[in-house]
């Protein structure tokens, strides 16, 4: 079958999709977007987390056909998603480097805080953490833990992931100033 949907802001078609294929498989193997990771493929580890119409989901548990006509954001589109969110809210966004767009604040914070080791869990954690910061710009530690409890990490012990989300909240808050209470752009 053919699946037509929007991936990272771009209308996309996948052909010859077998009915049993997951959204994760189609993203990784048919669309050349391997950023969403395949750590358990049973919805337990969160490494494949993407946003489907804004909602974080395990893409391994979404049949590709369920994505028909819908909007998907993967880690590959996270920086652009954050930039469009900032612009929609009328906020400044960091300048990109010469070789590409700036990282989303949460991506940069993961690098700076040492929250990336092997990095296999990182894409899913970033998508989940960015969604948290979108709806709760100043989360408590308990909020962060609750929001990220579906994402397993085997390397870091999570402490530096907490550091990274706190850091992203501070940086985003510092830039976003007063109007964080508007809520999600979606």
């Amino acid at each position, binding site marked *: 079958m053919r699946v037509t949907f929007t991936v990272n802001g771009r209308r996309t078609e996948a052909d010859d999709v*077998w009915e*049993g294929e997951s959204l994760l498989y189609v993203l*990784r*193997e048919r669309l*050349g*977007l*391997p*950023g*969403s*990771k*395949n*750590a*358990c*493929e*049973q919805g*337990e*580890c969160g*490494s494949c987390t993407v946003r489907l119409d804004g909602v974080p989901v395990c893409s391994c548990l979404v049949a590709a056909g369920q994505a028909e006509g819908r909007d998907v954001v*993967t*880690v*590959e589109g*996270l*920086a652009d998603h954050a930039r469009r969110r900032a612009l929609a809210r009328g906020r400044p966004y960091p300048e990109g480097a010469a070789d590409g767009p700036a*990282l989303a604040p949460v*991506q940069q914070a*993961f*690098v*700076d*805080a*040492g929250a*990336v*080791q*092997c*990095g*296999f*869990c*990182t*894409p899913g954690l*970033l998508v989940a953490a960015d969604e948290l910061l979108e709806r709760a710009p100043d989360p408590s530690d*308990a909020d962060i*833990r*609750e929001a*990220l*409890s*579906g*994402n*397993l*990490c*085997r*390397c*870091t*012990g*999570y*402490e*530096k*992931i*907490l*550091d990274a989300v*706190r*850091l992203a909240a501070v940086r985003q808050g510092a830039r976003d100033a007063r109007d964080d209470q508007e809520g999600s752009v979606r």
Partner: protein
Amino acid sequence: MTATGTPTGLSQGSRTHGGIGESTLRPDGFLKVTGEFAYSSDMWHEDMLWGHTLRSTVAHAEIRSVDIAEALATPGVYAVLTYDDLPAAVKHYGLEIKDTPALAHGKVRHHGEPVALVAADHPETARRAAAKIRVDYAELPVVTDEASATAPGAVLVHEHRTDHHSGRVPHPNVVHRQPVVRGDASAAARRAEVIVTGDYVFGMQDQAFLGPESGLAVPADDGGVDLYVATQWLHSDRAQIAPVLGLPEEKVRMTLSGVGGAFGGREDLSMQIHASLLALRTGKPVKMVYNRFESFFGHVHRHPARLHYEHGATRDGKLTHVRCRIVLDGGAYASSSPAVVGNAASLGIGPYVVDDIDIEVLALYTNNPPCGAMRGFGAVQACFAYEAQMDKLAAALGTDPVELRRRNAMSQGATMPTGQTVDSPAPVAELLRRVKALPLPPERQWEVAGGAPDVRALPGGLSNTTHGEGVVRGVGYAVGIKNVGFSEGFDDYSTARVRMEVVGGVPVATVHTAMAEVGQGGVTVHAQIARTELGVAQVTIQPADTRVGSAGSTSASRQTYVTGGAVKAACETVRERVLDLGRRKLGSYHPAWAHAGLRLEGGKVVTDAGEALAELADVLADEAVEAEQEWRHRPTEAFDPVTGQGNGHVQYSFAAHRAVVEVDTELGLVKVVELACAQDVGKALNPLSVVGQIQGGSTQGLGMAVMEEILVDPVTAKVRNPSFTDYLIPTILDTPTMPVDVLELADEHAPYGLRGVGEAPTLSSTPAVLAAIRAATGLELNRTPVRPEHLTGTG
């Protein structure tokens, strides 16, 4: 001595020059946060096929027949291979003993053993075709523990052993046995005023790295194969792969692809030979990616253990003797069991001074899943038991458990049970003092002023199982000792190639090693070393592959020491050659060129007085200077097979933990509130990475304490829980605040004084959590992991 890295103490790196001692950021960080970093499961090739492994459904059986006809006839299938298709006379591989068949031959020895391979044009086609292969098994009795493995007439797991341990072991189902005997434990026991004994059980832990076993094999025009896989040691893989493929090593070219964690689980081969066989047979690139279920069968686990200990002491708390016996279950194939035995034996009494010792450690062959390397490597199991014993002894003596440990703690100059002198700092008492001195987290953190309790801070969390009634707190301590590097006389070397040249007017260093970056941050540290030694800002790290000499394994906390040492040595050679070049070119212009003590700094050649003699760019001009260096740590020696005496280890590392737990005694639920660690790292080359390693290692120990265990049916030897639904690893909700106190007491024998970091924190976190749960509940708790039924008396 410095303390660094409070959990929120972020170091940005940008204010630094990126040399050693600074928290430089990962060079692969950008790729990893954008999803562009290519892990082994992301490999892709035009026209590639997908490989799949058929695995045995029983633990021990004769294979009467394998019928592949229906599978082979499936549309989209390109090849189906069994043992009969192995192309060379060599059909087995293994790290220490070559006892593992590339595909099962005649019999299977454990649940999940690879039996056949399929290559197809879609992964689902390959899976479905594999399901059509008919294997006729005639089941055999299983051996699953010491009693069944060594009983008279026991089934032999390997009936025709010829390996170098087989002549020394007491039974053919014992892989290796190592005693360590020093002094006279029996005589000392008579002097003891208090004796405590205990029997302990340590469950089977899994590395549970997130990136599944995977990779791509590409057949080459010369009849060889190019392999892109995740591993811990490229050259060791190649040495095992090539003979089974019937190829000379130079025709097996390996490149490290992105590695999603390892923790010991990638030391043994998984899909490397299988993908290569399929690629060579079909003439097409073959990708293999295990799913999580298969991953639990695709790598060796941590040895489960049964441990018996006897500790004696005088009334004033001085240890008189320790006797212990540790039985490790090695499962169906040897993997690294012999070395694990050596570690458990030599480190079996912990970081304590005891003159009279009697230790016996052995590993069994059984029909359980094969066990091998995992972070902590034999020292973990022992630490769990000897630290429980120290608490038991403290209770018997009426002494504070930390005080008892400090009274017996080893320090520099101490003698190990093996007779080896500890010739670098061993701050055991100081580490304990530091974790004990940390302020305790506030009590009853779930209480919210004037409101309902925040159940998220309680055992059971959002399950809302308690509002604080029945919740008790406990505090526990533990400390451990781990060896660094490969031991027992192993030629533990590494190779580095360093090149320096001018690119775009700027001096650039390029570092090429075969070190497997598995997440630990070796690539960051190598660049830091090159910047420090060569005074350049820009360093390029080449992909790890087999075009450069072996780096040894990314394990045993050894890579920063050994490959870091090789990079340092290669840089020193490059530096000398650059200085020679400068002397030849510019020596006549300034007399200081003739002096020793010139260094490279800030892109310049600088005298020891700080005077800049020349720009590196001018010295090099259009010349490139390159050096390749092998580097070895001090040699070690084998342990005596009877007494266990010998200078077997090169370096020791030490960590101490304090755990604070809260237990809901009604439901048996545990919340670890805080897990504090103090560790001596000799020199923190990258403090941010060091703290990350300590927190990650501590968390794996926490997981072992309260949740992680591969359950193997004792009757059928089948694995019951090969999934992340049933094998639990800690989530962010299970993991507490982890303050880390880093000591830097230099080891004069090591590069920069450093001490391997990655493993020591995995040792003491498990017993510290157990001690805290015991303190909270008053229960004895002699097994790990602790499950609710052990706390409620219902299991």
